[in-house]
């Protein structure tokens, strides 16, 4: 059978069943009518003839059922033949069969995997209050490039402007070692600004979250404090309510646990969880002389704004760009070529919605994500781009 004919026959088969039933009905009705005619010829009245014909035929449904058995028989028969034919053909060319099976397996597997990723990254939204009002500040020359594009100096300039929006927050993801000694106990950590949880709208499940008072060098009135996730609270402390006020060693430095976040809050990046959050300003306690707070060329922070109700992203961008010269100047790295300084000043801010998860997805699956590195090496110090190097296509130093 030529392929086209086969396709047509297959399509026709889809409609055949209904037609077949209809034809069987017609045929059996014809049979009854013929039998009735025959009996009327023999002298019976119409009613008697009809009744006699029906009795002789028996149950109409039983007859149909037996004919359907034949159809079934032939279907099973044909399928069995097809199956055996297929197996014989495949056995004759095992290489081809293997490729087909592998292709199907990979195809199905890849689809499943991609769906899981898309589901967890794109379809879920951030576990915060009104995530659609959250925007990430990015520098427009680095679309999808940098994972944490801001220095602490820039954050210090942006923070006082938070009142122009419904708040601002900054954070850096970090691997922490929670061991008091001996074997390391790695955990996903966050350096978070004092307004981090309140701006996101994440309340404490237990105790309190961070406050701006905690976000000062060396720690606020309670000393260095930490907020832990529900997951860590369950894993490490067995969900004990007495955990508030107990010490937690982070990178060998004692912090005090002041709060636990709700179970649904996994952090600010869809697809990644956090265990411990400590104030941004306590970073020097942990990193010591390697602190990045004063390094004006260390780009390690993500900065987010919460838009006011009714404040459009465009309006917020305009507001931010109007402040740009002041922010940039206040955070300008010292030295470097004049052209690089000019570039630093003119690089425009832009806002990317944080809610869609798309930006988070790009960030999370970026293969060279520096924060996936070892603790301590998990920051990136970006040098000023040298115009000369860029002009001749070289990589930035």
């Amino acid at each position: 059978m030529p392929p086209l004919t086969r396709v047509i026959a297959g399509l026709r088969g889809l409609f055949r069943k209904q037609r077949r039933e209809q034809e069987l009905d017609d045929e059996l009705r014809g049979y009854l009518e013929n039998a009735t005619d025959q009996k009327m010829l023999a002298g019976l009245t119409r009613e008697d003839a009809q009744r006699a014909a029906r009795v002789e035929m028996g149950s109409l449904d039983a007859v149909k059922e037996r004919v359907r058995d034949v159809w079934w028989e032939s279907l099973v028969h044909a399928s069995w033949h097809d199956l055996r034919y297929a197996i014989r053909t495949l056995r004759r060319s095992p290489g081809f069969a293997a490729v087909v099976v592998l292709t199907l397996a990979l195809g199905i597997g890849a689809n499943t995997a991609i769906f899981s990723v898309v589901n967890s990254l794109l379809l879920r939204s951030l576990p915060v209050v009104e995530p659609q009002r959250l925007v990430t500040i990015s520098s427009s020359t680095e679309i999808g490039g940098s994972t944490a594009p801001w220095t602490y100096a820039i954050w210090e300039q942006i923070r006082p402007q938070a009142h122009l929006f419904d708040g601002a927050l900054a954070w850096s993801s970090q691997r922490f070692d929670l061991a008091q000694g001996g074997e390391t106990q790695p955990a996903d950590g966050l350096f978070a600004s004092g307004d981090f949880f309140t701006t996101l709208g994440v309340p404490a499940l237990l105790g309190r979250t961070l406050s701006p008072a905690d976000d000062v060098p060396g720690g606020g009135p309670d000393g260095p404090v930490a907020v832990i996730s529900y997951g860590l609270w369950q894993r490490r402390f067995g969900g004990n309510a007495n955990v508030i006020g107990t010490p937690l060693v982070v990178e060998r430095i004692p912090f005090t646990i002041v709060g636990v976040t709700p179970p649904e809050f996994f952090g600010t990046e869809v697809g990644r969880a956090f265990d411990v959050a400590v104030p941004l300003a306590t970073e020097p306690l942990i990193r010591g002389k390697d602190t990045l707070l004063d390094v004006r060329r260390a780009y390690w922070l993500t900065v987010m704004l919460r838009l006011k109700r009714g404040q459009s992203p465009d309006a917020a961008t305009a507001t931010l760009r109007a402040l740009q010269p002041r922010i940039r100047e206040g955070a300008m790295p010292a030295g470097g070529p004049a052209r690089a300084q000019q570039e630093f000043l003119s690089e425009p801010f832009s806002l990317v919605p944080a809610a869609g998860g798309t930006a988070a997805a790009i960030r999370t699956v970026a293969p060279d994500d520096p924060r996936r590195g070892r603790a301590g090496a998990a920051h990136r110090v970006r040098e000023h781009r040298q115009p000369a190097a860029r002009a001749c296509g070289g990589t930035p130093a």
Partner: protein
Amino acid sequence: MRSADKQNALVQGTLEMLILKTLALEPMHGYGIGGRIGQISNGVFQVNAGSLFPAIYRLERNGLIKGEWRVTENNRRAKYYALTAPGRATLKRETRGWEVQTAAIARILQASAGDL
């Protein structure tokens, strides 16, 4: 087989052969086939619909007969069946096989001690 009515039981598979033979004489619809078998056998074989139609459909599935809708002499639509070429060949083969078998069976049944 359901057509195995009382003492006149049809040997398995025989009904299909009889249908083929009936249709070799002339194309016919379902009721006609049953009537013809009864008529030729002088009423020995009464084939009911429950046996007839499954047999007809099986023959059609196997490509031995082919149905076609036509108008009857009483101006009704009916599906007329006709023998196909494979059907004709099958009938010929089965008839020969049947003759050989019945002759052999008859010889056995008529055998007496003297024949040995």
